[in-house]
């Protein structure tokens, strides 16, 4: 039986003026899911529900079968979050940021972080505030990989990455999720990469999920 990493079970909620309605999907281990929709469709709201400490929705969100809200912030050990929203210390280097934050994780592999930074060709000695957007996303990805999450949540990560590296990035991602038996939930405005790289697609329209299923060519026509 497939191991389900992420499950949204009739999730409904109001976030500011926005209403998310009855979101249902299950994402198994080893697969990547693209969350697609126009601006204001609810993609960021889904991610906020996943990452926030307080439960501001009805329904259940489960990570690896466990309702994430009941475990407080412990579930964040299992989530690798990569986003512009994820703030690190701007005046510290990549290494210093790691030294500050790694102890909060149960299992942080410093060597793996170093190797990942080398693979992605970003120097950990560079000040975080001086990194370009693409470099910051790579740093966050390396940081996430180092604490062995079950779920990677990537919010508009590849915007700002050079096109050549983008191909390598997805290769790295596929290898990581197969090796770690993890899953990826990703938002992106770059249709070509969603079309090529995602195993599952969830389409959001005005707070409702109008489609969830395997990635098919017909979706992109």
């Amino acid at each position, binding site marked *: 039986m497939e191991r389900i990493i992420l499950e949204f079970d009739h999730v409904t909620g109001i976030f500011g003026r926005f209403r998310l309605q009855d979101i249902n999907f299950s994402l198994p281990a080893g697969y990547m899911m693209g969350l697609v929709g126009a601006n204001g469709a609810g993609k*960021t709201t889904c991610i*906020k529900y996943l*990452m926030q*400490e307080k439960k501001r929705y009805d329904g259940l969100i489960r990570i690896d079968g466990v309702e994430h809200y*009941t*475990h*407080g*912030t*412990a*579930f*964040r*050990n299992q989530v690798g*979050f990569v986003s*512009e*929203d*994820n*703030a*690190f*210390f*701007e*005046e*510290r280097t990549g290494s*210093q940021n790691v*030294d*500050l*934050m790694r*102890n*909060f*994780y*149960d299992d942080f592999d410093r060597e793996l972080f170093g190797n990942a930074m080398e693979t992605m060709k970003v120097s950990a000695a560079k000040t975080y*505030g001086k990194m370009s957007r693409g470099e910051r996303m790579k740093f966050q990805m390396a940081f996430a990989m180092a604490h062995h999450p079950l779920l990677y949540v990537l919010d508009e990560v590849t915007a700002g990455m050079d096109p050549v590296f983008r191909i390598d990035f997805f290769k790295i991602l596929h290898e990581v999720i197969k090796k770690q038996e993890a899953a990826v939930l990703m938002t992106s405005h770059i249709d070509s990469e969603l079309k090529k790289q995602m195993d599952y697609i969830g389409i959001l329209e005005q707070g409702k999920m109008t489609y969830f299923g395997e990635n098919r060519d017909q979706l992109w026509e």
Partner: protein
Amino acid sequence: MDKNERKDRTRGQVRLLQEFYKNLQTWEVSSVGAWLGAGILLSVGTALFWIPSQEYGGDSLDQMMYVLMTYLLWIGLVLYMNPYTTITEERKRKSIMEKLQYLPVSRRSILRFQLKKLFRMVLILGTVQLVGQCAVTAIAYRRLELRNLLFPILLGMLVPGVMSGLIVVTSVMCAKTSKS
């Protein structure tokens, strides 16, 4: 997660926060400035509590004195807590919650850590005020009254402690964290 598990987890996270702040403040120059300012205000405020309360009547000047002493302690405590609640980046003060919001550490743990720091300082200051008040009064007046105890406890500990505590609670629980 049951109540005991949550309690254990909070204690564990408080220990991690101790380590986190120790590393953070090694590099933060503004922490030194804040603690220097806090030291001056808290020293002056505490010293004023050594004046026997018998010296104060009920006139408006004395009442202003009470307010000043309490205010000095309150501002001193706020400055003392600044390095634990905020960080300076690009010459702007930002809430530390912005950096901690997506880490596996709860607001409850952060609040517990910060309030522990605050109340420890309040207790130390209160003890110094109480001992000083009683000692100076005993030497000057050869007697102690109830007000010699209540004066530092209420105005020296309770009022500034509660006021600073409210600021800490607000800074953790109501911090605007997400940029979007």
